[in-house]
């Protein structure tokens, strides 16, 4: 018969054994947490929702690929960054300190990225900002920030030769005063002047005035070959409509970054004949032949039709290229973490070193095509495209290899301490 002492011994022993087994099991299964600085409201809310969806799809795929170093990956979302830099910064802090995110994919709003970058370094957390203002990698980045999709300067560097040769060198740039618009205006101005062209800049307050008629009137058509616009998506639609009201589409070549119409249907008459610089074709039949298998998989995972619309809502345009920033950030983490056998945040310096200079072949993980991550400024370089709206649809006119987008950077984060 079991004595009381034996019973107690057995109980304690069993409890310790269960605790140790359970504890070690929990440690093995402990997920790696990827946080999302998600804008649920404000100017980039639609982008925020789609980036979140792309992240969710990427993480599901990673988990099907046995996670990262055998550990499952979990997505943790911020409450709402509200497209406001201060709020976004606070949300980042909560993600890291309260929700224990190991890595954070940033907001699409450049202002939020710039406000958050110093905190990423303070909290020693790798941060992937999704805004595209040049200063994110040039002036305001640090060793902990990585851009997994192009910046304005990379896109302009890639496209400027084609644009000058095919559209002209006499520019009028109408731009919003926010970082996204200002950096486009500054970078184009430098290129145009270096090429001997002329440039007239018309800054527009943010948010743009209710009526853009008077702004359009300021454009001197006799001195303009290329009318370049740099606004957020909804303001781009209003600007192009106001331009159509004054028949500018028939008079000058209108050019912009695809980010300006990323969530807009190109069937609108105001877009007909306009040119865009993009990081990826919206329509599957315009994707380069060698990437089509990956493209098909990417669209299937995220829920995008062959024409670039949402599978659930055929009227909703998906910012297909923009989403690569979030999708590919997850696979950058996976690739680098597996290279250095990342276990916890104490291994993050090794992971950062692995990311610096990483090359990524085209695959389902990197469906945008082969890319590389420049060590100095932590920016990914990929191919670009010139697209034109013809018959209501975006058609690729030229593919610009990633090497064309390499510009001289002033940053060198590899010299920074961890």
């Amino acid at each position: 018969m079991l004595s009381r002492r034996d019973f107690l011994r057995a109980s304690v022993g069993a409890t310790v054994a269960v605790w140790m087994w359970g504890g070690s099991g929990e440690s093995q299964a402990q997920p790696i947490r990827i946080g999302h600085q998600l804008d649920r409201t404000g100017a980039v809310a639609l982008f925020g929702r789609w980036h979140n969806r792309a992240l969710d799809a990427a993480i599901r795929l990673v988990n099907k690929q046995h996670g990262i170093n055998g550990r499952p990956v979990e997505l943790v979302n911020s409450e709402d960054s509200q497209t406001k830099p201060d709020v976004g910064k606070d949300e980042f802090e909560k993600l890291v300190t309260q929700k224990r995110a190991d890595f954070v994919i940033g907001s699409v709003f450049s202002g939020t990225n710039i406000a958050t970058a110093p905190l990423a370094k303070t909290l020693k957390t790798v941060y992937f900002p999704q805004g595209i203002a040049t200063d994110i990698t040039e002036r305001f980045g640090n060793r902990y920030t990585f851009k997994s999709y192009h910046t304005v300067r990379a896109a302009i560097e890639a496209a400027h030769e084609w644009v000058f040769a095919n559209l002209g060198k006499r520019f009028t740039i109408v731009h919003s005063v926010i970082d996204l618009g200002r950096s486009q205006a500054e970078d184009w101005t430098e290129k145009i002047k270096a090429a001997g062209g002329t440039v007239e800049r018309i800054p527009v307050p943010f948010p743009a005035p209710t009526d853009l008629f008077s702004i359009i009137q300021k454009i001197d058509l006799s001195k303009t070959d290329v009318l370049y616009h740099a606004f957020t998506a909804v303001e781009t639609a209003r600007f192009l409509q106001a331009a159509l009201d004054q028949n500018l589409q028939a008079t000058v070549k209108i050019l912009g970054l695809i980010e300006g119409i990323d969530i807009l249907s190109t069937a609108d008459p105001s877009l007909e004949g306009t040119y865009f610089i993009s990081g990826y074709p919206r329509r599957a039949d315009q994707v380069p032949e060698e990437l089509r298998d990956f493209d098909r998989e990417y669209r299937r995972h995220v829920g995008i039709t062959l024409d670039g619309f949402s599978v659930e809502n055929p009227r909703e345009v998906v910012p297909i290229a923009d989403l690569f920033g979030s999708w590919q950030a997850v696979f950058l983490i996976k690739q680098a973490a597996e290279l250095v056998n990342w276990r916890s945040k104490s291994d993050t310096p090794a992971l950062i070193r692995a990311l610096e200079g990483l090359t990524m072949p085209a695959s389902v993980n990197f469906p945008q095509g082969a890319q590389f991550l420049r060590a100095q400024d932590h920016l990914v370089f990929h191919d670009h495209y010139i697209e034109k709206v013809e018959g209501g649809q975006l058609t690729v006119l030229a593919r610009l290899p990633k090497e064309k987008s390499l510009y001289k950077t002033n940053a060198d984060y590899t010299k920074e301490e961890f």
Partner: protein
Amino acid sequence: MLLLALLNGLVWGCLWALLALGLALIYGTLGILNLSHGAFYMVGALLGWLLTPALGFWGALVVAPGLVGLAGLALARLTRLERNTTAALLMTFALMLIIQQIAAIALQAATGELRHPIASPVRWPIPVGDRFYDGYRLIAAAIASAVLMGLGVLWGLTRWGCCVRAVRDNRDLASIVGVPVLWVQWGTFGLGAALAALAGALVGPIAREVSPTMGVEVLLVSVLIAVAGGMGSFGGALAVAFVYSFLENLLTVLADPMLARASALFAIGLIALVRSQGELFS
């Protein structure tokens, strides 16, 4: 270029006048600054867009301000805003936030986004030099002018106008001589709301979009116009609306767009200052 700027100034002058006049009338008769005025403007644009598939744009242009006007009348009657002007200020501010949130939820549910594009009801490009002017704007200005003229007739030549002016000048005396002061006040609140809604419905196709925040964008300007015009003054609000509109359009074309609105606002701020000093010294 200047001709088009002046033309656009004239169009926007009519639209600003509609907005500011509603605000000035409400202040004149109720003694309150209606901070929900921008929300009525936004609801006008939103209803105009929502009702267009059923009624057509022109039908919606009549029904939307009518509905907002009735809602404004009911609101003034139920809340008795005239009782406490300080509380009314806070109440109209809260009302603006509530209406804005409801509109945001409704728009998000209906379209999945917070800003929705609006097409112009007519395609009438008028060639002016190497440019075109959107004929719809002239139609919008004509409608606004007709309403303003109608109001002018009501204001100056009818018993209703006489009652409103009497309430504005001295409520107690107006009451003694048999003017239904409360109904004049509530009715004027409804009329002011309807004018704001009409302006919103007319501006929608010019702005090319409807959004829950569009009312906030115009509130500051319309308040300044109404203040500079002399709260409660029909002619004053009208004159300052046109001064502001011409200044903003001309300065945008001739100078920096970043400074145009600020300069135009500064100018009407000066008018308000000079006017208030004049009243102080008189």
